[in-house]
């Protein structure tokens, strides 16, 4: 136990620790409110993306839940001038990668394509491009399911979440040129998957 003399000789801010704690709590409460304000509007998007990643509703819910926990704990490291959506989607993705489904999925080797070979072969316009059916939502969703996961992930972030290439690069931890080629490749694959449906009756 400290004597009165010892207590008096301590610097002011030590004596005043309870007041400082209260101030910290106020700051922390403000920070939490700020986090909620940023995270809540993204809840439906995060859930949708989690469903596409896990292909399972219960797992998707767990994934979003864990993402919120981790993000709140790490929120002090979030800088206001960076993109919150990109930041939290990155946490979602990293959390997924360490989950059982994510680990299993990462065992499948994905090869980035050899750009030159592909680009020159189909750079010319294809008249059939315009004929693919896009009004059949179910067919498009089936085609999206068949995409290789790394392609689908990049395409969803771009088209559904409207994230810019530079932020997709941060989320997926790949160079921006790879983002560009994955998105383009995903679209070509979708076209190919939708093409055979042409001959079928509506």
């Amino acid at each position, binding site marked *: 136990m400290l004597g009165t003399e010892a207590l008096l000789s301590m610097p002011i801010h030590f004596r005043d620790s309870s007041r400082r*704690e*209260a101030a910290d*709590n*106020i700051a*922390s*409460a403000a*920070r*939490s*409110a700020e*986090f*909620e*304000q940023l*995270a*809540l*509007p993204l*809840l*439906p998007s995060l*859930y*949708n993306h989690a*469903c*596409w990643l896990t292909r399972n*509703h219960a797992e*998707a*819910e767990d994934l*979003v*839940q864990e993402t*919120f*926990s981790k993000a*709140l704990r790490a929120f002090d490291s979030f800088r206001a001038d960076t993109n919150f959506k990109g930041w939290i989607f990155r946490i979602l993705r990293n959390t997924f990668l360490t989950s059982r489904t994510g680990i299993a999925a990462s065992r499948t080797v994905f090869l980035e394509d050899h*750009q030159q070979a592909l*680009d020159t072969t*189909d*750079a*010319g*316009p*294809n*008249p059939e*491009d*315009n004929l*693919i059916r*896009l009004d059949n*939502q179910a067919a*498009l*969703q089936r085609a*999206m399911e068949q995409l290789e996961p790394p392609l689908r992930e990049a*395409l*969803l972030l*771009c*088209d*559904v979440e409207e994230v*810019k*290439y530079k932020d997709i690069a941060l989320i997926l931890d790949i160079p921006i040129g790879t983002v*560009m*080629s994955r*998105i*383009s490749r995903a*679209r*070509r694959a*979708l*076209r190919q998957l939708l093409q055979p449906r042409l001959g079928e009756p509506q």
Partner: protein
Amino acid sequence: MSQTIEHINPDVLSAFIDGELSAGEQETIEQHLSGCHACGLRVLSATRLKTATARAGRRFVPPPEVLARLTAQLHGESRRRIYSIRRTAWASLAAAMVLAVSVIGWRQLHETNNLAAELLDQHLATLSSAATPQVISTDRHTVKPWFQGRLPFSFNLPDPQALPSETALKGADLTYLKGQPAALLLFTIHKHEVSVFVTQRFSGPNLAALPSTRSGFTIHSATTHDLQIVAVSDVNPADLDALVATLVRVQAPS
């Protein structure tokens, strides 16, 4: 290389429709597009695929109980960082309000964005040369009766002299917006194609928060006593307004 024309590389085209090219690159592409019909079609097709992907990708909506659990967890997690009870109460109240507003806002935004995407999609579909309207006629006395028995409502069409200058009726189609039947009227204004959708005001989709532009196209809407009118085109907004105003005027009971 045997090709005489260097067409747009697929990766570049893809980045172009995503708005990811630098100003200089974009200009080069636009220059190429102004002279290359084939690449123009590819851009149009790619844009339609992007819109369709965006819609199809918004597939999984959290069920109410999942939404409730996740928001509760979010409140709970952040509350653990707060000590004072009174502050907790205020924070939860504020959070609940933010939640209510943001969820409603998200729903509305997505609904109107989906509607805008649907309108634009249908408009782009009419632009394709393969698409012929079900009624091809510049005569309002042919177009209007065609809808009888096809739509659960009726509307008036202006006679050609009453239309703004260089504006003409081309034809019409029966279509659906958010599952509700709608008349799709095809006009041209100075060679720009215009799609006008006419729906019932009370059972039709909610147009209140529709954006005024999407992907470079202007979207204008108006309501009359019992109709909603939405026009989509790349023509200048003032001309589009003039057409919408004329259509609104002729609906008034004489």
